[in-house]
């Protein structure tokens, strides 16, 4: 068995499942957003703000944000282990990606619950 410590869930199966589930969640969120924009052609601040006042929308948005972070981590981790053969380069790249995703998640929570 091949061992790893930097992949998302320590097992290839869990990474694979997470990649699929997060993709479905992101698809649902995208379809919802596109539908929302189509139903509200003259979108103003009040309607946009009202949408995100709803707790359900905030939960859905946070779910999508976490899915995006997990999906991006699994994908970019795979790319880095495919193409970056020097350990130092790979580790630095993975650290930068992890840090960036962490910052986006915290920032996203602040945006969703801050207003």
């Amino acid at each position, binding site marked *: *068995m*091949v061992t790893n410590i930097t992949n998302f869930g320590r*097992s*290839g*199966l869990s*990474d*694979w*499942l997470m990649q699929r589930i997060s993709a479905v969640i992101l698809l649902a969120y995208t379809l919802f957003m596109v539908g929302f924009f189509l139903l509200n052609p003259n979108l103003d601040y009040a309607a946009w703000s009202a949408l995100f006042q709803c707790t359900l929308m905030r939960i859905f948005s946070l779910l999508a944000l976490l899915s995006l972070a997990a999906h991006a981590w699994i994908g970019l981790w*795979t790319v880095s282990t*495919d193409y970056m053969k020097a350990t130092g380069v790979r580790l630095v790249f993975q650290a930068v990606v992890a840090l960036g995703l962490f910052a986006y998640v915290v920032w996203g929570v602040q945006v969703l619950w801050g207003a």
Partner: protein
Amino acid sequence: MLQVSVYRYNPETDKAPYMQDFEIDTKGKDLMVLDVLALVKEKDNGMAYRRSCREGVCGSDGMNMNGKNGLACVTPLSEVVKGGKLVLRPLPGLPVIRDLVVDMSLFYQQYERIKPFLINDTPAPAIERLQTPEERDKLDGLYECILCACCSTSCPSFWWNPDKFVGPSGLLQAYRFLIDSRDTATRERLADLDDPFSVFRCRGIMNCVSVCPKGLNPTRAIGHIRDMLLANAT
């Protein structure tokens, strides 16, 4: 006249590999690529390539013909030649020993890793372990693999991680033993494959299916392995 361009490399005398051109007279016949190679060897005795049965059974002469992997002995010129030119290269991704001969060690290591033999911890019966015809049918499309390496060396995931990703050929064989009713080591076999590389580096691009000279489908076998892993772990 057929223009044949062959990959040449002799590590004892050449600093770098190069392509050498030959003019081959096929006498208008639709020869197999292996026959053309024999004509090339008549012109240059030093040409190195592997061949044995010359009828698609032994899997020795896997090579890259005009960009696509296949067995030279069962590939007619009409199938690969474009614009009167034939380009022959060794199987991609493996170290070249000389000319069209590659070092298959990495490929065999992955094959060895999946334990390509029946494991059964129940007492051996007096004569043989029987299978129903239905159980035997499940091995069709799996056991026919001749280990020519055409599939694994056409797979980018195998090119990038030949030490960790089992590759289409090895995984086809892994499934062949996972699904065999006489094998009792299913759980152990699955546990050995449940990491991010061994199975899950397959991105399903199906290069393996498009090049297999035996018409086998490793991508489908990999899908079945994934289903078994999922059923076992959820």
